[in-house]
Structure formats: structure tokens, C-alpha cells
């Protein structure tokens, strides 16, 4: 249970935020901060258990058939991420409170932030791959909301969209990979998957699933060549960048590498994909960071570079390298969040992030400058800071690995990468805070508010503490987290400031020197190659891809529906015909149809069928004489109703009969506005014969299919319904019980459709609504209506009440009501107190309430209870709660039917139209 609380705190806080009044500026951040404070306390309470090796789990069965459960597990790695997400989240909320002090309404910001926080926690805590994926997608969506927070700016929209598309596409790959992985392992539970390592590695699908999962992780963690979205995401408010793009979201990818490290890692394939990608990302990111003019752009590329470093460490695949990766993950989160917040202060106080204009800010904001410089030094890997320790470990690991049998390749390139990182760290620290400003700044800079600096102070203090006293501060966390990546037999973790003079130390010193040189004399020594990779290349290919997709859709649609709608329809029909005929080709048709001699029993259907066909042909032949055609269609409908009677379906027959009446009146009403066209010629004979041939072919296909089914009866699942209708549904009319009970959810959807159609019609035919001025005065008709109406409504009530046991029910009763209610309208009487939308809304709400009411009694949605009810006069009734649902159906049918009728009857086109 504490796990559920740990996960749900941000969601609850986000929901509460949306209930806050608009005006409050003080409350949202306080409420938002509540979630991480409580969460961190909870984690604090659980920490001793975690150190002792306890892993609390929670398992709530959910979609058992799909093996998706609400399974949570707090192991060391998850705990590390919970700590990062909550800890840095809290600092970001404090910081954001001041950063956004000009915003009018911050509820949306904090609610999205909390949503994201919850999603990240879900990713960390999920013990089921598919649950993990759901939260993974939720992080994409909430980050879309956050990056696009300033949606009025086009850069924000573009950045948000790009991030969503890239990470979302990655999510799809991930889903495919997870499905394969779960299929091989036989379970989606993370622990089961980890236990099935041998099976997974031996499976021929391993390469495919590895590539898919890695694609997903790389897209999320901005690995080359999918890194281009991260710099564009810098359009987000800086607190968001500090949170998402340093500590949390981009870490989700490397988190996944760590999570699945025990299953997937350690193979040659893993090494030869992950190491080159990580290395390329490390170098490209570091190189680009040195070319940026935008302060946040520099940080974005440096983040890419550091993520590459972590990926590279995971890629090496040894247990020691995985520990080093986890360690750098922690360190990077601390110093990078601090750096982003510093950049945010600079932006906030000077009004620009252009490094060409910035300089010498240490004079104006000495405190911030000090913090920024220490954090940048940590990024550069200066001794006494945490970045130094993990960089030493990194060097150590690269010296162990020898890709392609070349022992020096990896260390040299890694060393180059870190030298570049020294150079851009210097650009950040020295270029912004020292030297002199080259241009006028939009605002006169001054020190930031106290509480904007406090979060950075904390982070910088952590950098220093970890850097100087690693054994006291971070060792325990690192051990707990690493244990769930590499197993219980941890390699010895040697965290110390001084290991003696060794190769990593020398490399470190050399990297410092090279970085200094690169920074000091960029023109002479550095960048002879210019841009390593075109900076906008990724963005441009992305845009081209999107444009290409749109183009493709356009051209397909254009080819398919090049000219007129009718031709398009014809093409669809041809396609369906082809698809229908295809499987029959090559099959031998039955040689002789089983023509039994005609019997007496066949005569009524034969006659009925004859009338039906005749009417249909009349409808087709004289379709231009519209009144005649409508009447002919009505005859077909009546014969259909008789067919239902013949073949034992009184419910259908009743419905069809009433619908037929309603539809015929509707069509006739519509004909007032759609008179038979008299101009123009008939369509050409060739065209008519062609259409007739096609229609006959299609009809023949339908007849053949139907005959095939009818002559080979298949077992149906209806035995269940017949058997359980009375004991479970409390009704003997099985059709009605199916509608309102067994398949109530279906019906719920269908009445919703009905309601939507009604609303649409109301909107479409708004003109002239409510008027009945020019209706003919028909006294006899009015008298008749007055007499008939009560009886009609009584019939409806009767049909409704018996519906559960005998033919009838909400649909039929509703339609009958509509027919009788329409009479006054036709007679020109004022009778429009009913508000159709309100009836429909009542109906839908009643349906919802009955459905959810079942939850109160611990049953499934829309399940029904039943019993006996004694009504005066009517007598004993077997009554089920499903009747309430049927009442909802009734209300909705009346509302929708009423809307259809009155709108068609009262429609008056505007004059001159």
C-alpha cells in the first residue's frame, strides 16, 4: 500500500490543483510541493528496508487476460529514480514558483509537472513491462504539455511536437520489443523476464527485439542520430528543462537500459550497438555544445553528450561499467539540474540567452556566478567534485574494453570527448560570468531572488559533498541501486578522491589542458573541421520526413478520389467485390443446388419475398418519383418486419414496424424540402447498366455468402444467454436481457451514437426551430390527436414494462412514444416544451449511474440485480435494475427521435437562400 501512495501522490496533487480557484498565485506551488515532500518522507521511512535488501511489492490483478497488472516493485534502481524524481522535482517546484512569477495562472504548469512526475515514478516503479510502457507514453504526453507550455510561441509548438513524435515513435518500437520479450519469457513481469535471460538470448528473435527496445530507449535518451529533438525542446520554460532534460525524462532511456541490463546486456550484439551509439553521441554532443550561441542550447548538447557517456558505459556491458554508469547518472542529474537553473536565472535577469551578448555577469550576480562555476566545474570533472569521480571511473572502464581488438581506440575517443566537455564547461562558466559584455543587455542584470538560488545551492552542495566525501554520502545509494542492475554480488566500488598517480588521473589532467587550450584559442587550434554533423540535419530530415508523409497521404487520397465522390464510391465497391471474389477463385462451385420440391410451408415466405422484391424494384425503377419510391421502400420495410415475425423474432418485428412508420414520416417530411428534380436529363443508359451490373454482382456475392452460412449451420454462443437469462438477468425475454444486461455496454455505446446523431441534427436544421405558425389548421386532426395521445403513451408504458419478460423494451417503447408525440406537431399544435438535448442527457446520465451503481455492490460495470416488485393494479412484476438502464435507453430514444422529428417538421430555410 505505501507503494501505491508513493506512486499516486503527484496524481492526487495534480487533480487537486485543477480544483483550485484561478486567482491564487500562492497556493499552486505549495500544493504541488506537498507531493514530493510527502513522497520523500515515505521513501525515507522505507530506506532502511531497502538497504537491508527488502523490495516491497504490490500486485493488483488488472487485465489478467493480457497479462497486464498493476504490479509495482521498489528495488534499488527504482528507489534511486524515485529519489531523483521527487528530490529534483521538489527543487524545481520551488525554483519554478519564482521563475514563473510573471505568469497569471500557474495551475496548468504545476499540474502538468506533477503529471509528469507521476508518470516518471510509474516508469521507475512498474514491475510489468506493459505497465511500464503505459507510464513511458504518459511521460511523452506530459512532456509535450510542458515543452509546449508557452503554446503561443511557434518554437514551443514545434519543439513540443518534435519531442512527442520522436519519443512517441520510439515508444511504438518499444512496445513491439516488449511484446516480443514478453512472448519469449512467457510473462510480462519484469522479474520473470530477468529470470528468463537464457531463453531470451537463445531465441532467434533476440536481435530484433534488442534493436526495437534500444530504438525506444535511444529516442527517449536523445542518442545520436535521434538526438535532434532535445535542443528544440529547449523552448520549454527553464524549470521544465532543468527537470525533464537533465534529471528525469531523458534518463528514462538509460533507466530502461539499466532495468533490462540483466536480461539483454553482455552479448556481442549489445556491445556493438550500444557502444558505438553512446560514443558517437558523446562526441557529437560535446562538439556541438562548443558551437552553440544559446546558453540552453549548450546545456542541451552537453546533456546529450553525457547521456552518450552513460549509454557507452552500459554498452561496455561489464558489471563494473554498469556501476560506473549508475554513478554518473546520479552525478549528472545533480550538476546538470543546477546548471539549467543557473541558465534560467541568467535568462530571467538579463532577458537574453545569447552567449555573444553575455559576459562579466559575476559583477552583478556574484552569488549565482559562484554557484554556476562550481556546477560547471563538476560537469568538467574538476577534482573535489562529483563529476571527477565518475569520470575517473569512466576512464578506468574504457581502458578495460577493447572494441575491434584495438586497445587504445575507446580511451582516446573518450578522452577527446571529456576534453571537449572541459571546453564547453569553460564557455559556460567563464564566458558568461567573466570577461566583458560585448553588447547591451535587454535588462540590467541583478542578483536573483533568494529562493531561486536555494535549489541550486543545495545541488551544488551535493556536488561538493559527493566529490569530497563519497564514502559517507553516495556510496550506500550507489550500492543499493547497483544491486538491482548487476545482481547481489556487487563488484567492489572504490570511491576515493586519490588513487595515486595512474593512467586515469593523467588522462584527466591532459583533458583539462586540452580543454583549456580549445577554449582559449578556438580559432587557431580548434574546429578545423567545422561542424562535425550539420546541426540542423536532424531537424531537417525530420521535417522532410513529415512533409513526405503528408505528401504521400495527399497523393494516395488524390489518386483514389481524384474526381467525383461517386467515382470514389464506385472504386470502393469494385475493390470490395474483388476482395470478396478473391478467396472464391479456384474453388469449385457446388455442382447442383439442393433444390427441394416446393412445400406448403414455403408458400408464405415465397409470396412475402415476392412482394418485397417487387416493392424494391418499384423503388429502383421509379426512384425519381420520390413519393412513390418512399412508399415502396416502406413496403419493403413492412415485409422485413413480417420476415422477423415468421422467423421467431417478435422484438425485432415490433421495432422494425415502428421504425418503418417513423422513417416513412421522416422521409415524407423531408420531401417538402427535397422535391423531385425536374431539370436535367436522365443519366446515360450505359452508366445505369454498368451500375446495375455491379450492384447485381455484389448482391450475388452477398446471396452466395448467406446461402453458404445457412446451409452449414455453425454452433452459436447463444446457449449461454438462453441458459442464464432468467437466473442471472431476471428476465425471460432473452433479446431484451442481452440488450440491457449481458451486452449492456454495447447498448450504452449505441445510445450514445443515437444521442450524437440527435445533437448533430439539431445543429444542422436550426433554422425555423420552434415555429409552427404556418401549419394548417385541422380541427378534426387536432381532436383525434387529443383522443389518441393518452392511449398511445399508455401503449408505450405497457411495452416498456413488459420488455424484460415479453417482447417490448426501451427501444420500442421510446419509438412508440415518439410516433405519438409527433402527431400534435403534424397537426400544428404547440407542443414543444420538451427539450430533446435534456432528455438525451438525462438518459445518458441515468445509464451511467445505473452502470456505475453496480460498482457500489462490488459488481462489474452495468451488471444487474433483480427481484420481485408488487405494483397495484399491474400485479407481481419481476423487476431488475436493468429496467433502470432500459429507462435510460427509453429516455434517449425519445429525446433523439423527438429531435429528428421536430427539426425536420419545423425546418424553414431562410428566405433568399
Amino acid at each position, binding site marked *: 500500500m505505501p507503494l501505491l501512495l508513493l506512486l499516486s501522490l503527484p496524481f492526487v496533487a495534480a487533480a487537486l490543483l485543477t480544483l483550485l480557484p484561478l486567482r491564487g498565485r500562492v497556493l499552486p506551488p505549495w500544493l504541488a510541493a506537498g507531493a514530493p515532500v510527502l513522497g520523500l518522507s515515505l521513501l525515507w521511512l522505507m530506506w532502511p528496508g531497502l538497504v537491508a535488501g527488502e523490495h516491497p511489492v504490490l500486485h493488483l490483478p488488472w487485465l489478467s487476460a493480457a497479462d497486464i497488472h498493476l504490479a509495482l516493485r521498489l528495488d534499488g534502481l527504482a528507489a534511486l529514480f524515485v529519489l531523483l524524481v521527487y528530490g529534483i522535482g521538489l527543487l524545481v517546484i520551488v525554483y519554478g514558483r519564482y521563475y514563473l512569477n510573471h505568469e497569471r495562472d500557474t495551475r496548468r504548469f504545476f499540474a502538468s509537472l506533477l503529471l509528469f512526475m507521476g508518470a516518471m515514478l510509474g516508469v521507475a516503479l512498474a514491475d510489468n513491462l506493459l505497465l511500464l510502457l503505459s507510464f513511458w507514453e504518459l511521460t511523452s504526453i506530459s512532456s509535450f504539455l510542458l515543452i509546449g507550455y508557452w503554446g503561443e510561441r511557434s518554437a514551443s509548438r514545434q519543439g513540443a511536437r518534435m519531442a512527442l513524435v520522436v519519443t512517441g515513435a520510439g515508444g511504438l518500437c518499444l512496445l513491439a520489443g516488449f511484446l516480443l520479450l514478453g512472448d519469449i519469457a512467457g510473462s510480462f513481469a519484469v522479474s520473470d523476464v530477468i529470470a528468463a535471460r537464457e531463453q531470451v538470448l537463445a531465441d532467434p528473435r533476440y536481435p530484433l527485439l534488442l534493436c526495437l527496445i534500444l530504438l525506444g530507449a535511444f529516442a527517449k535518451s536523445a542518442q545520436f542520430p535521434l538526438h535532434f529533438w532535445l535542443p528544440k525542446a529547449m523552448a520549454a520554460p527553464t524549470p521544465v528543462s532543468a527537470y525533464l532534460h537533465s534529471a528525469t525524462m531523458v534518463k528514462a532511456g538509460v533507466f530502461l537500459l539499466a532495468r533490462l541490463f540483466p536480461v539483454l546486456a553482455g552479448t556481442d550484439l549489445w556491445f556493438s550497438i550500444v557502444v558505438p551509439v553512446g560514443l558517437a553521441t558523446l562526441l557529437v554532443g560535446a562538439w556541438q555544445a562548443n558551437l552553440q550561441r544559446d546558453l540552453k542550447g549548450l546545456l542541451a548538447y552537453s546533456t546529450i553528450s553525457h547521456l552518450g557517456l552513460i549509454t557507452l558505459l552500459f554498452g561496455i556491458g561489464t558489471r563494473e561499467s554498469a556501476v560506473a554508469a549508475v554513478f554518473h547518472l546520479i552525478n549528472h542529474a545533480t550538476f546538470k539540474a543546477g546548471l539549467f537553473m543557473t541558465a534560467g536565472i541568467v535568462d530571467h535577469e538579463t532577458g537574453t540567452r545569447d552567449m555573444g551578448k553575455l559576459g562579466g555577469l559575476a559583477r552583478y550576480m556574484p552569488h549565482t556566478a559562484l554557484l554556476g562555476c562550481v556546477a560547471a566545474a563538476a560537469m568538467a570533472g574538476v577534482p573535489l567534485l562529483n563529476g571527477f569521480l565518475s569520470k575517473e571511473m569512466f576512464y578506468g572502464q574504457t581502458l578495460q574494453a577493447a572494441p575491434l581488438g584495438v586497445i587504445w581506440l575507446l580511451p582516446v575517443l573518450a578522452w577527446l570527448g571529456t576534453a571537449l566537455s572541459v571546453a564547453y564547461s569553460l564557455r559556460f562558466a567563464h564566458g558568461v560570468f567573466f570577461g566583458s559584455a560585448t553588447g547591451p543587455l535587454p535588462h540590467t542584470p541583478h542578483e536573483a531572488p533568494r529562493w531561486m538560488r536555494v535549489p541550486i545551492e543545495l545541488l551544488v552542495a551535493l556536488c561538493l559533498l559527493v566529490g569530497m566525501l563519497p564514502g559517507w554520502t553516495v556510496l550506500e545509494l550507489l550500492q543499493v541501486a547497483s544491486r538491482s542492475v548487476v545482481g547481489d554480488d556487487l563488484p567492489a566500488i572504490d570511491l576515493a578522491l586519490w588513487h595515486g598517480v595512474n593512467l586515469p588521473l593523467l588522462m584527466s589532467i591532459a583533458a583539462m589542458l586540452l580543454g583549456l587550450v580549445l577554449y582559449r584559442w578556438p580559432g587557431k587550434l580548434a574546429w578545423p573541421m567545422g561542424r562535425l554533423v550539420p546541426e540542423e540535419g536532424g531537424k531537417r530530415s525530420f521535417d522532410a520526413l513529415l512533409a513526405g508523409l503528408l505528401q504521400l497521404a495527399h497523393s494516395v487520397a488524390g489518386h483514389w478520389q481524384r*474526381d*467525383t*465522390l*461517386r*467515382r470514389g*464510391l464506385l472504386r470502393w465497391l469494385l475493390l470490395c467485390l474483388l476482395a470478396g471474389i478473391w478467396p472464391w477463385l479456384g474453388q469449385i462451385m457446388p455442382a447442383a443446388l439442393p*433444390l427441394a420440391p416446393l*412445400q406448403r410451408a414455403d408458400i408464405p*415466405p415465397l409470396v412475402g*419475398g415476392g412482394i418485397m422484391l417487387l416493392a*424494391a424494384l418499384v*423503388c429502383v425503377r421509379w*426512384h425519381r418519383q420520390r413519393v412513390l419510391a*418512399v412508399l415502396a421502400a416502406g413496403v*419493403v*420495410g413492412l415485409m422485413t418486419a413480417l*420476415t*422477423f415475425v415468421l422467423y*421467431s*423474432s417478435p*422484438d*425485432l418485428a415490433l421495432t422494425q414496424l415502428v*421504425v418503418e412508420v*417513423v*422513417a416513412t414520416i*421522416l*422521409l415524407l417530411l*423531408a420531401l417538402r*424540402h*427535397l422535391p423531385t428534380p425536374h431539370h436535367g436529363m436522365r443519366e446515360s443508359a450505359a452508366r445505369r447498366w454498368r*451500375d*446495375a451490373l455491379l*450492384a447485381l454482382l455484389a*448482391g*450475388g456475392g452477398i*446471396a*452466395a455468402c*448467406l*446461402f453458404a452460412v*445457412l*446451409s452449414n449451420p455453425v454452433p452459436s454462443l447463444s446457449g449461454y*444467454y*438462453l441458459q442464464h*437469462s432468467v437466473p442471472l438477468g431476471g428476465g*425471460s*425475454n*432473452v*433479446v431484451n436481457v*442481452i*440488450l440491457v444486461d449481458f451486452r449492456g455496454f454495447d447498448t450504452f455505446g449505441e445510445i450514445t*451514437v*443515437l444521442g450524437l*446523431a440527435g445533437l*448533430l*441534427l439539431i445543429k444542422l436544421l436550426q433554422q425555423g426551430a420552434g415555429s409552427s405558425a404556418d401549419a394548417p389548421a385541422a380541427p378534426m386532426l387536432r381532436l383525434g390527436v387529443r383522443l389518441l395521445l393518452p392511449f398511445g403513451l399508455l401503449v408505450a408504458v405497457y411495452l416498456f414494462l413488459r420488455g424484460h*419478460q415479453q*417482447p417490448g423494451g426501451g427501444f420500442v417503447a421510446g419509438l412508440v412514444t415518439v410516433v405519438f408525440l409527433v402527431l400534435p406537431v403534424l397537426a400544428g399544435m404547440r407542443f414543444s416544451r420538451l427539450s430533446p438535448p435534456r432528455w438525451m442527457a438525462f438518459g445518458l446520465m441515468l445509464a451511467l449511474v445505473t452502470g456505475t451503481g453496480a460498482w457500489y455492490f462490488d459488481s462489474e460495470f452495468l451488471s444487474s440485480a433483480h427481484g420481485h416488485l408488487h405494483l397495484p393494479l399491474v400485479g407481481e412484476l419481476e423487476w431488475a435494475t436493468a429496467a433502470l438502464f432500459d429507462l435510460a435507453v427509453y429516455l434517449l430514444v425519445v429525446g433523439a427521435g423527438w429531435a429528428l422529428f421536430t427539426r*425536420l417538421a419545423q*425546418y424553414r*430555410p431562410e428566405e433568399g437562400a
Partner: protein
Amino acid sequence: MSALLFSLIVGLLAACGLYLVLRRHSFDLVLGMTLLSYAVNLFIFAMGGLKIGATPIIHAAGSDYADPLPPALVLTAIVIGLAMTALLLALAIRQRQQQGDDRIDRDEDASC
């Protein structure tokens, strides 16, 4: 015999509907859709088999019942079909109001 007859009628009904759907005016399309939906409803209804005198209403002496599932599916389809007819009519009326008649395609005289 009745199965064959039933299939043929449904097929022909569908053909009539399709022919009307392919005509020039929206109103013909509405008529066509009406006929087509009769055919489709009968088609789905027949999937449960055609039984005479076996109404699926549970009673003490009964053991042979017609399949109740297809009627349940068709019942809502009939009602929704009605709503769709009305919606198409509304569209046709608006179209006529704006364009003077209810031709489906404006500029097709030459091409057909």
C-alpha cells in the same frame, strides 16, 4: 428451399440498394441506404439460423429457442439506421438549400 429463397431475396435487395446508392442525387442515396440496411439487417439476423416458432422467450415447456444474439444486435442497428437516415436527410436538405438541388457531385456531367 427457404434458405435459398431467403439468400436470393437478401442479395437482390442489397443489389437494389447499391444501385440506388450509386445514383446522382442525395435522396436516392438515402433510399439506397435504407434498402441496403434492410438487406444487411436480414443478413446479420440470418446468421443465427432461420427457425420458425421458436421465439427466444424462456418458458417452462420450451427447450428449442431461436438464437437471441443476432436479433439483439440487429435491434440497435435498426434504431441507429433510423438516426442515420434522418442525418443524411438533414445533410441533403442543407445541400439543397445551399446549392439549389441535391446532386451529389457538382461537376461531373462531362465525365460520366
